[in-house]
């Protein structure tokens, strides 16, 4: 009962908001040129899904996102591990990382376009760059938060370095790594859509940008809905993977 009540309350607010919007648009209280009725947006969205190639755009964007994500996250995790485990590596690199981390990801787009051109590699770099630092810092923090006694357990049993890393450092950092993944998904979505605005003919971002240029407001909203669904779906997938990968945290 408690869960049902929570669910109903959580649904009530957005449903009410949409109904209010629908009513305001239909009665002319909102200018449908800028704020088309939700029902019209849904119709347009459905039409684009069925025949307009919206799913192709989603596929293109998701493939870019996942490849770029892997290109950024894998080195980020590895370097974060190294920096968490070894003080000299940390001393050498931490200040550089901290200096580069706050750069707004999208701000490097012009530079990337100059260096990589309009092709796929620039887009992948943008996404990789946007998640690399976050994954690095999360992994490093995760490693350093492992209680020292757990490494003592491994060391007291004369575990090899490799076994220490495999059995303590990696699983110990994994929860923090998953937090990094969830946060990175948001970053990556922003960056891929923003990049596709300016440097792509395909993808959800390109679709939105095109709609803007021809003032096709309903398609523009349909694009927004699509990105929201992508973010929701990616988070859901990350949550499922996390539950499978971290079974000991179930019920927390």
């Amino acid at each position, binding site marked *: 009962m408690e869960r049902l009540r929570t669910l109903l309350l959580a649904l009530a607010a957005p449903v009410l908001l949409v109904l209010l919007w629908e009513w305001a648009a239909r009665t002319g209280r909102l200018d449908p040129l800028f704020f088309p009725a939700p029902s019209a947006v849904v119709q347009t969205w459905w039409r684009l899904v069925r025949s307009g190639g919206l799913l192709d755009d989603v596929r293109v964007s998701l493939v870019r996102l996942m490849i770029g994500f892997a290109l950024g996250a894998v080195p980020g995790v590895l370097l974060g591990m190294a920096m968490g485990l070894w003080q000299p590596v940390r001393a050498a690199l931490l200040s550089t990382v901290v200096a580069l981390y706050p750069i707004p990801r999208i701000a490097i787009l012009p530079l990337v376009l100059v260096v990589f051109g309009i092709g796929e590699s620039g887009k992948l770099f943008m996404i990789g760059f946007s998640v690399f630092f976050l994954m690095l810092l999360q992994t490093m923090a995760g490693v350093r938060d492992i*209680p020292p006694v757990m490494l003592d357990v491994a060391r007291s049993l004369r575990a090899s370095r490799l076994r220490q890393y495999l059995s303590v450092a990696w699983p110990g950092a994994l929860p923090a790594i998953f937090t990094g993944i969830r946060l990175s998904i948001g970053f990556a979505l922003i960056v891929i859509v923003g990049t596709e605005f300016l440097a792509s003919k395909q993808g959800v971002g390109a679709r939105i940008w095109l709609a803007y240029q021809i003032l096709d407001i309903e398609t523009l909203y349909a694009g927004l809905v699509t990105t929201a669904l992508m973010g929701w779906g990616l988070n859901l997938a990350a949550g499922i993977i996390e539950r499978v990968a971290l079974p000991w945290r179930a019920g927390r």
Partner: protein
Amino acid sequence: MARSSLQPSPASQPVTPMEQPPAAALKVRIAGLAKRYQSAAGPVDAIAGLDLDVREGEFLTVVGPSGCGKSTLLRILAGLETATGGAVEVLDRRRRLPAAVVFQGVSLFPWLRVEDNVAYPLWVAGSGRRRRKEAARAALERVGLGRFARAYPNQLSEGMRQRVAIARALVADADVLLMDEPFSALDEPTRLLLQEDLQAILGKSGQTVIFVTHSIDEAVLLGDRVAVITARPARVRALYDVPFPRPRRYTEVRHDRHFNDLTVEVWEALREEVAGGIRAAPAES
């Protein structure tokens, strides 16, 4: 080595290693052990000239003022820190590892099931899956937690987790079992139960145990001998025999006058060290 200045009671004799009965074989020889840390305020001697002989199969408890270096002693024995002087020698090696540790507080891996935690020492040693499983099950039965093999540590109570940690240390198959205040984070009823459980678990296994604690009651209850450590730098101030039959139940020995006399004697020895330590204690390094 300092000796107790107190009169020996009928139940106990302060003894130095020199006065050991000849029958007891030596298991660990600690001679002139020293550990010096470099701190911001200059060098700090945690241990200086500590001599201690541990006999084969005995349960030796080590009490001392907090911060006296008794945990450092244990970490050196465990190979987690290196001494800056003297020597530690585990004699007559018969098992796979010289020493295994039951640590203070939460030392189980939360990401492993109880049975995999217990089997961890064998995984480290490269044993196969079946051998690991069998050894873990057997050790869990020994500590009375066979039913919880598939659970995760966070599903167990603190007392159960510490029994799992004991099972893990037993699986490590070490000549000396080192216990670093293993029950100090537990509530008192749980601690009293585990003190009894530990005696039952070890039984007549002949396992040599070095048990560090800051609880005098615990030291006297569990130890075949009690070593009182001085305030920092750590040395052995006095050794006491605890000639009482096992298993010892806290509620029973409390009524034994000799046992109480011995507890008071240990307390008197420790008291001087604690008092001296409080007055002269430099900042904890």
